[in-house]
């Protein structure tokens, strides 16, 4: 690990540009410089097609930029192999998507245990205990033994959050995390995010087009046509 940066940025984007190649190249994001510090709760907003999600995927190392680079906890990622990127996603990043994307063949506990099993380093009992503990913290103590299709939409999304937390990442990246939820459940998920930031010092970057949700975050980055127009 390189020395901690003075500003302690957990995620940093340097002149990030992503162009989809093709006969008519499409620019998704252009020349974005961005730094996200510890314990920051950031909303990325903008009209649809403005590049919000694309930016999130770049920050989450799911996509590679055409130009520029992403640093995770100060570590440059431009030269890393695909499996190194996967390792970083596994240990340092947590994802929550609009759809919960839980594996339907597995139970709630199994879904949360999955990233820990991949990461290794813990024995089966520890993994199970930690998965239970996370789920209980998120108010899902009744769901431990259930299959995912026995849960409500709000519960599923909370399980997805629990899965994102499995390997104790400092950064949670969320893509329209409340997009499929009613107001009440959206509020619950939002409160969880808030708690993760305040009590556990995690950083959260959430793409949303919900102005109410955005208004309750610490910082809003507004994108139009792939560029940052307000921060």
């Amino acid at each position, binding site marked *: 690990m390189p020395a901690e940066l003075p500003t302690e940025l957990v995620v940093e984007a340097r002149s990030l540009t992503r162009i989809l190649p093709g006969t008519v190249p499409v620019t998704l994001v252009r020349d974005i410089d961005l730094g996200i510090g510890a314990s920051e709760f950031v909303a990325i907003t903008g009209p649809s097609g403005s590049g919000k999600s694309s930016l999130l995927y770049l920050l989450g190392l799911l996509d590679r930029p055409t130009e520029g680079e992403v640093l995770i906890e100060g570590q440059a990622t431009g030269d890393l192999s695909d499996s190194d990127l996967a390792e970083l996603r596994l240990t340092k990043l947590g994802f929550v998507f609009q759809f919960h994307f839980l594996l339907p*063949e597995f139970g709630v506990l199994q879904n949360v245990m999955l990233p820990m099993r991949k990461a290794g380093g813990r024995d089966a009992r520890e993994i199970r205990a930690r998965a239970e503990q996370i789920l209980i913290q998120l108010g899902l103590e009744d769901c431990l033994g259930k299959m995912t299709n026995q849960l409500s939409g709000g519960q599923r999304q909370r399980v997805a959050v629990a899965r994102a937390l499995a390997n104790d990442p400092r950064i949670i990246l969320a893509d329209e995390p409340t997009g499929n939820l009613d107001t009440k459940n959206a509020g619950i998920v939002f409160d969880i995010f808030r708690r993760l930031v305040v009590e556990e010092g995690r950083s959260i970057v959430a793409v949303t087009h919900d102005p109410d949700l955005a208004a309750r975050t610490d910082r809003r980055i507004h994108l139009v046509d792939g560029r940052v127009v307000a921060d």
Partner: protein
Amino acid sequence: MRLQLDIALAHLRMRKRQSIVSLLGVSLGVGFFIAIAAMMQGFQQYFVAKIIDVSPHIIMKDEFREPPRQAVMQTYPGGAVRLEGVKPEDEPRGIKNGKAKVAELSRLPGVKVSAVLNGQVILRYGSKDVSANLVGIDPQHERLVSRIEDDLISGQLDDLYGTANGLILGEGLAAKLGARRGDTLTALSTAGAVLKMKVVGVFNTGITTLDNIQAYALLKKAQVLQNRVNVINEIRLRLDDVSQAEPLARRIEQRFAYRTESWEESNRNVLGIFVIQNGIMYSTTGAILIVAAFGIFNIISTVVMEKTRDIAILKSLGLTHRDIEIIFLLEGLLVGVVGTLLGWLVGYGLTEVLASIRFEIEGFVRTEGFRLNYSFGNYLFAGAMAVLAAAFAAFLPARKAARLDPVDIIRGAA
């Protein structure tokens, strides 16, 4: 690996019916291969064992592979010489200086030698004329070279010594003539000689062609009948080590120039059929396995298509290309391995069923049921082929799954 295995198993459980069909495809392929291979190899080995058992391992005949060359050709090898109107010399047939050759061959270690005179005769009994191949033997030596003595179903080989003009008939030949032990029949040779002969024994080798045409008499009597006193036209050898037959036959032929055939050469036509038989067996079972492989390809392709979102989420969680590939390869291998295990049971069961079937058949050889070869090697071979086919069938969809771009999928789903 446990994690990937769990996911692979979950996928297969989810598509239970398709998985079972693929599994059945593999196990039937494996099972049929084992049963058919047991049957074919069993028959072939039985046949070869019979051949090795019944007939001499090497036969030297009074023929040459190539006709002797004219003197002028020998003087001008490669010269532009053309001879017309050449008439073959009417040389007396038979192995020249046979006794000395027999003596020399007898000195080879692990080799038993018997000199015989082989010739066509007509056997006449009552109103029936049947052509037969009469082999003049010396029982003392012949019993060391072939199994004729064990194959006698009535009479004894030494009865040839005790009876004037004794004759031993193949069972089929005896049946055609309607003659039995003790009957006296007439033998006529192409040399014009006629001899009254008494049947002293009947044999059954299990090789139908032999039993239908072969008859044995004392060498001396055969020589009289053929009007070729002191002549032999075949030297038969039996080896302790059968595998040496071919090289030894070549050496003997080089030494004496007479056409010398090992049992492999004499039965080349039948052994050639075996090669074709095996080809048919391998391609049939290969076809079953290919169909099974398509089944595996089908199920895994379907799972990959259905599970693109899961693949995307697994990748976003931090599973690598390799992990995804392993998951789907494992699915193919699971079907292949479990199918193989089931196939072993199917194969064992089928073999047992075949073994219990009883019937009488007369083809090249006589047998009263399937001869089966219980070879563990066939189980291994069929299993290896099945697992290989399964792995290959899984490989393409697995690679496709590994290459899926999670961003495309998540974007598409949102």
